[in-house]
Structure formats: structure tokens, C-alpha cells
């Protein structure tokens, strides 16, 4: 699989090892010869220390209009940017744009682009690029599978001048600003049009703190610090993201010094690492939520009763589970959302751990204790401790006399059941995990509680009506009290048993100094410092 570029260089995405018949084009040479990569700036990045990162899963795509899942953000969060993004504290902050204004009706957003925002090929970012990025993201031939979240609601992007553009929405969308950083990346019109879609996916150019250099599928991705970034100039030079699928081997990478930073350490491996003198464990809160969805759709009529679902919530000691199963690497949750998500305030009265009351409520509701609840779990290891978590929940339910039957499925079979259009009436409780890409809750709520949506095992017309109005506000401030009411209603309805939001766990050598961005589940690397 090779690709001829404009300048005649042939490079391979798959590559071959030194002992193979075809040798891989050397990364640096490829980068230097790549059309559009600014050689001067790449050379300027030299002299900074290289960074080697070990990651468990290869990404799927390099094209921002084809992102298929959260893993891909290990690449996109470092190479691309939207008009706005999130700062080191996870707060909304300007990125390619320096400021914006919103019309009183909430339908028109005017952005002023940064004077010094530029692409990795040295081209300045213009309003035309913003318009082109939108057009490409909604073009039918692009087949952007996530267009429905943000860009499909844009009626037009007007170019006012080189640095100013106006985005007109079809309907008000209070989640618009929060989603800019994850659902609408700005790409270079000149490069994308010159290269064409296929070549763009192989040699993408963004505006982020790192420029893409080279990828060998299932082996590594190479990036290089972009000295021309408007403000977040990396303190490291070349970054190699190695794909190391096995958890133990990934940990060994930092123990041996082969990698400087290891991503996604399971809690059971993180605990012993904390005692090792030559490395450190770094943790940050994330928006990765673990919960158990209750099938309230009528397969088991008992579970359609809110009081039964509340009782099941009261039967689980989340803090004990978090301590014993996750070894404390997470934050226990009462509401069906992570602390930090907009509208997710904890002013509601938590259910707490009240096993006696739970048993009493179930008895009063006429719950049949002789019939086991059928539980479905995820057993493949994609989510750390998924199996143990569901077993722990079952054990707490058993303590109040509720019988359980657990079926563990591999990830593919689990997601087929969890995301099925018609939910299986033979499933009563199902292990679930959900990652919010930013602090806006609308993506989660629309997909996990709205009637008929992919991950919803619950239906309530009253909640559906609230969800319809959820984004119909001009500003986040105006929307905040509404979201509070919505989450309070969901707490009362108890469609799930929320458990915790997991910590993102990293292991790093002592030479690394880094504060991960909270509330994202992928590493943003521009602020990594390496000494020695």
C-alpha cells in the first residue's frame, strides 16, 4: 500500500520493517518532503527532547471528518483544533478564533480569527478555511458520521473578511460552543483541495500544537512539535506514539525507559507502580462514566417503576466498590453525570447506601425476590475492571435478597446488545460506560435517556420533552437552571445506577513534568516537559 505524493515521494502507511522486502520511508525524510509541511519550522523543533508515548489501541483514521471513537482523539486533540477548545483546566477557551460574539436570538455567532493562527504548512488560517471545513464536514460524499451533532445545524458560514466569519445556525444550540473543539476541526482549504480526500487522510495538516509526520498502522504514529503554534508551543520535539496493546507490556515500557509516558494504566497495575521510585503515576479526573443501565422499557414490569429503580440504587455501596474494585481511581457519582459536566450539580439529595430501606421499598412495590435479575456485562477488558464491577453490583443486590444471573459478553457482542435498536426484554440490567467529549451534557443525554436512542433503556415522554428543549437557549447561563432541573428529574427517575467516573491514569518517568487536562479521556501533550 503506497501513495505517490505531488512531489513524487512514495510513502507507505503500513510500512515494512528493516528485515522486510520493502523498507519504510524514513519518517523525518517523509515529513521533510511532504507537500505542505514547513521544513524550516520542523527544523526549528529540533533540539527539543523527543517524547515516546505508549498507547494501547491504534487510532482508526487521520481525517477529522471520519472520527469513529474516543481513542482517535489521542491524535486529533494534538494535531487539530476548532475555533474554540478547552484549556488546561478543562474550561472553554479560544483556539483558532480569539473571540466571538453571539446575536441576541442565539442564531448567529461571529468569530474573529487569531492573527497568528496558522496551519502546519505555514499558511495562515483564514475565514475561507473555516467555511471550507464546514462545507467538507457536511458534504454528502464526505460521509461524516458525526455531522448530526454540530455541523448539520449550521445554515451557512459567511466570510466577512480574511479574519472574520459569521456562523448562522438553523436552530438555537446551547451546546454549540462546547462542541466546537471536538466536532468541527479547521482544516486547510488549499491543502485539502490540492491533495484530495485520500491523500489528505494520509498526510493531514491541522493547526494544533503538533504536526503529523508519519504513521505505521498498528505500530506507531509520529508527530512533531509545531513551533508556529499561536500559543501552545510544545516543549518537546518529536513525539512517537507507540501502539502497545498489552497492559503489562505497556507498563514495562516506562519501567525500562523505552517510553517516557504510558497512557491508560489499569488501576490494578497503577497501584504497585506508585511505590516505584524511578517513575510516577499521574492521574486526572475524566468524563468516562461507569454505570448500570436499568431496562425500564417493560421487559420486566417491576423495573418500569421508578421506586424499584431507586431502591436498586440504594442497595449499592458505590464508595466501597470504588475502593475495592477500582482501588480508588475514580470519583463516586450520585447523579448520572460526572462532576464538572454542565448542569450536573450535586444539590439533589443522594440516595446513599441504604440496604434496609432498599429491601423495604422493593417489598412494598411487590418485587418478586424469587426471580433473578438478568445482568449483562462487558468481559473483554476494554473498560478496566468491567467484569469485577458488575460482579460487585450483583453482590450488593444479593445482600438485600435480589437474585442475579450474570452473562459476560465480549465487547462486540456487548455493544450489539447495549446499542440495539430494539432492546432485549430478557436483559434487566446492563453494564454501561459513556465518555463525554466535553462538559456539555447534551450528547450523553440524547443518546442515553431519550426514547429510542442508541443507548437508552428508558422511556419517559416528559423527559423527552425536556430533552427537546435542552439546547434551545442562547447562552449557557440561560440554560443552566434548566439543566439542573433536568438532572434532578433524572435523579428522581433513576434510569441507571450511576457508579463512578474513572480517573485517567498515566505512568511517566521522573524526567516528565506534566499536568493532564482534566475531564478529557485522552492526553493533550503540548504542555509535557521533559528534562534530563
Amino acid at each position, binding site marked *: 500500500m503506497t501513495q505517490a505524493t505531488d512531489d513524487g515521494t512514495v510513502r507507505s502507511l503500513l510500512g515494512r520493517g528493516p528485515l522486510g522486502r520493502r523498507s519504510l520511508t524514513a519518517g523525518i525524510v517523509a515529513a521533510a518532503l511532504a507537500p505542505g509541511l514547513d521544513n524550516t519550522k520542523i527544523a526549528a523543533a529540533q533540539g527539543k527532547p523527543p517524547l515516546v508515548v505508549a498507547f494501547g489501541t491504534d487510532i482508526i483514521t487521520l481525517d477529522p471528518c471520519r472520527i469513529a471513537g474516543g481513542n482517535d482523539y489521542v491524535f486529533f486533540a494534538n494535531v487539530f483544533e476548532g475555533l474554540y477548545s478547552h484549556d488546561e483546566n478543562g474550561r472553554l477557551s479560544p483556539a483558532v478564533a480569539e473571540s466571538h460574539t453571539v446575536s441576541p436570538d442565539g442564531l448567529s455567532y461571529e468569530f474573529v480569527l487569531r492573527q497568528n493562527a496558522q496551519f502546519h504548512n505555514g499558511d495562515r488560517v483564514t475565514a475561507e478555511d473555516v467555511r471550507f471545513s464546514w462545507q467538507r464536514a457536511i458534504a454528502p460524499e464526505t460521509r461524516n458520521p458525526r455531522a448530526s451533532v454540530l455541523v448539520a445545524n449550521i445554515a451557512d458560514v459567511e466570510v466577512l473578511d480574511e479574519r472574520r466569519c459569521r456562523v448562522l445556525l438553523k436552530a438555537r444550540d446551547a451546546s454549540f460552543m462546547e462542541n466546537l473543539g471536538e466536532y468541527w476541526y479547521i482544516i486547510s482549504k488549499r491543502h485539502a483541495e490540492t491533495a484530495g480526500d485520500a491523500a489528505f487522510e494520509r498526510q493531514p495538516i491541522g493547526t494544533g500544537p503538533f504536526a503529523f509526520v508519519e504513521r505505521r498502522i498498528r505500530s506507531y504514529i509520529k508527530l512533531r512539535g509545531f513551533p508556529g503554534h499561536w500559543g501552545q508551543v510544545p516543549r518537546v520535539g518529536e513525539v512517537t506514539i507507540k501502539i502497545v496493546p498489552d497492559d503489562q507490556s505497556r507498563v514495562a515500557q516506562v519501567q525500562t525507559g523505552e517510553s517516557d509516558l504510558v497512557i491508560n494504566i489499569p488501576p490494578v497495575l497503577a497501584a504497585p507502580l506508585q511505590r516505584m521510585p524511578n517513575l510516577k503515576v499521574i492521574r486526572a479526573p475524566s468524563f468516562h462514566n461507569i454505570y448500570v443501565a436499568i431496562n425500564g422499557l417493560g421487559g420486566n414490569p417491576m423495573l418500569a417503576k421508578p421506586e424499584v429503580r431507586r431502591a436498586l440504587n440504594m442497595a449499592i455501596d458505590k464508595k466501597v466498590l470504588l475502593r475495592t474494585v477500582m482501588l480508588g481511581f475514580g470519583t463516586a457519582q450520585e447523579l448520572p453525570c460526572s462532576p464538572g459536566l454542565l448542569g450536573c450539580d450535586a444539590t439533589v439529595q443522594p440516595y446513599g447506601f441504604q440496604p434496609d430501606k432498599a429491601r423495604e421499598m422493593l417489598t412494598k412495590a411487590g418485587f418478586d425476590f424469587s426471580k433473578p435479575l438478568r445482568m449483562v456485562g462487558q468481559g473483554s477488558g476494554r473498560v478496566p475492571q468491567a467484569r469485577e464491577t458488575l460482579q460487585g453490583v450483583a453482590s450488593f443486590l444479593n445482600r438485600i435478597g435480589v437474585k442475579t444471573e450474570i452473562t459476560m459478553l465480549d*465487547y462486540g457482542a456487548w455493544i450489539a446488545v447495549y446499542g440495539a435498536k430494539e432492546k432485549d426484554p430478557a436483559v434487566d440490567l446492563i453494564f454501561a460506560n459513556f465518555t463525554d467529549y466535553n462538559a456539555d451534557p447534551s450528547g450523553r443525554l440524547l443518546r442515553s435517556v431519550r426514547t429510542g436512542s442508541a443507548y437508552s433503556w428508558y422511556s419517559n415522554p416528559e423527559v423527552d420533552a425536556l430533552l427537546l428543549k435542552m439546547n434551545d437557549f442562547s447562552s449557557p447561563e440561560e440554560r443552566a437552571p434548566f439543566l439542573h432541573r433536568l438532572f434532578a428529574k433524572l435523579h428522581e427517575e433513576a434510569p441507571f445506577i450511576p457508579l463512578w467516573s474513572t480517573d485517567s491514569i498515566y505512568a511517566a518517568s521522573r524526567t516528565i513534568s506534566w499536568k493532564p487536562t482534566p475531564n478529557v479521556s485522552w492526553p493533550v501533550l503540548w504542555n509535557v516537559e521533559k528534562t534530563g
Partner: protein
Amino acid sequence: MGPFILKRIGQTLITLLLLTILIFALARLTGDPTPLVMPSEATDADRAFFREQYGLDRPLHEQYLVFLRNILGGDFGVSFRYREPAMDLVLAAIGPTLQLAGLSMLLAIMIGVPLGIAAALRPGSWFAATVRGYASLGQAMPSFWVALMLIMLFSITLPVFPSSGYGEAANFVLPCVTLGFFASASVTLLTWANMAEAMRSDFVQMERVLGIPNRLIVLKHALRNASLPIVTYLGLQFGLLLGGAVVTERVFAWPGVGQLVVEAILNRDFPVVQASVLLTAVLFMIINLCVDLLYAVLDPRVNA
């Protein structure tokens, strides 16, 4: 020799055809790949387009005929996950796997054959007991455990070899030792047993009476007679390593075909599963064919 080869090639082609049916059906039994490929934000129309694009909306028999027609034209389809030609992904992975399997087998032969011969020549000695202990350990220790122990010893405690990765010569050491150690145990025992039997045979006794030098008896006559089961085992083991060194490839982040096919099965990436299985099957059959031909060289009675 000619009819023998033609017969074997004919059998191989029929087996391959049956295999296409089997692998096509088994891949589809795992379920719909759409939820694993499309993000949760995708609309019903996006999902329908995905199925249409890859022909997954057609009846199964139609899908199979298209698949068969395409592979006859050398088109194994495009990976659902990586959107690259499936065969290119497999060919990129088969190189590292062949290298790993080849070097491991070489190591197994270099260790197993001399140890087996030496133990067979010294029955009841302390040396034979030590060899038996080595072979038992090699067969008893699971390869993932051996792999992790090697990493702990030679990457973490004594930082001599890299713990994982592919590309440098040093990357080969620990994975090859892991696989070679396991295979060498079996080669040792097989060589030992067959050599012992050969050494007890009438023709060896006769050669001794005739005063033929012991070295010649052992290496030229007895070893040749003992080699058929060893060659069979090596052929089978090499074939297994081509598709089955999954644990070793995973632990050492080796970008081989075993790990590729497991990932493809878990992600329901049908084109990659089909291309991997077919290619490894063809290689396996070629190896079997070679073993059969080698039989003919080693044992003239096979030609009869």
C-alpha cells in the same frame, strides 16, 4: 513424483474452496460490524450507508459470490476499520510473523535436535535427566508467563533487550526465545525418542558390526531415519506459529498476523479476517506440501 504433486495440488485447491465458504460464514456469525465501526453519533442513514457500501445489506449467498469473484481477481476487500485494502494489511503483518516464526523454529531446531541426539546417546545419564527437565519445563510453562519473565529479567532488571516493539535486531531476541523455547522442548523430546529407537534398530547394530564410525551411524543413518516425525512436527508447528503466535505477538507488541486476525475478529473486520485466514491457510498448505515433498526425499518409499 509428478502425479503425486498434481494430486496434492488438486486437494489443496478443493480445501481452499471449502475454506472460503467456512471463513465467510464464520466471520458473519460473529454479528453486525456496524456498531463497532460507526460512532454512536452516527444516524440510521449513516449506518445504512455503511452496510450498503460494503454490500452487507445483500443476501448472504450474494455476498459470498461477490467475495469469491473478487478474491479470484485478487481483491480481498477494504478493512472496515482502517479503510485500507485488507490484503495489504495482512501482507504487512505476514512479514513480521514469518520472521518471528522462522527464527523461532531455527532456534528450536538448533537447541532441540542436538539435545535430543545427545540425550538418546546417553540413556540414564545425568545429562539425559537434565535434558528431560529442560523439555518438561519448556512444555509446562505457558508462553505468556515466559514472555513476561523474560521482560522482567532482560528488559527491566538487566536492561539488555527492548521489552517490546519491532524493527531493530534486538527486538527479535525475547519473542524468538519465548516461542523457540516452547518449540525446542517438543523437538528435543521427539528427536530423543526417535533417535533412541533408531539406535536400537537392526541396521544400526549391523553397521556397528561392520565397524562404520559411530559419528557416521548417528548423523547419517540413524538421524535420517528419525527425522520424519521431527519434520512433520516442525511443519505443523511452523504453520501454527503463522496464525497462532497471538499471545507472544500481543505481549511484545509485535505487528504480526496473529494479533491482526484477533483484533479483526474482535472488531468484526470481515475483510481482514477473510484475507488473513486465507493467506495463512495457503501458507500452511504450502508448508504441508513441502513437508510431503521432503518425505519423498527422506523416505523413497513415499514415491512408491
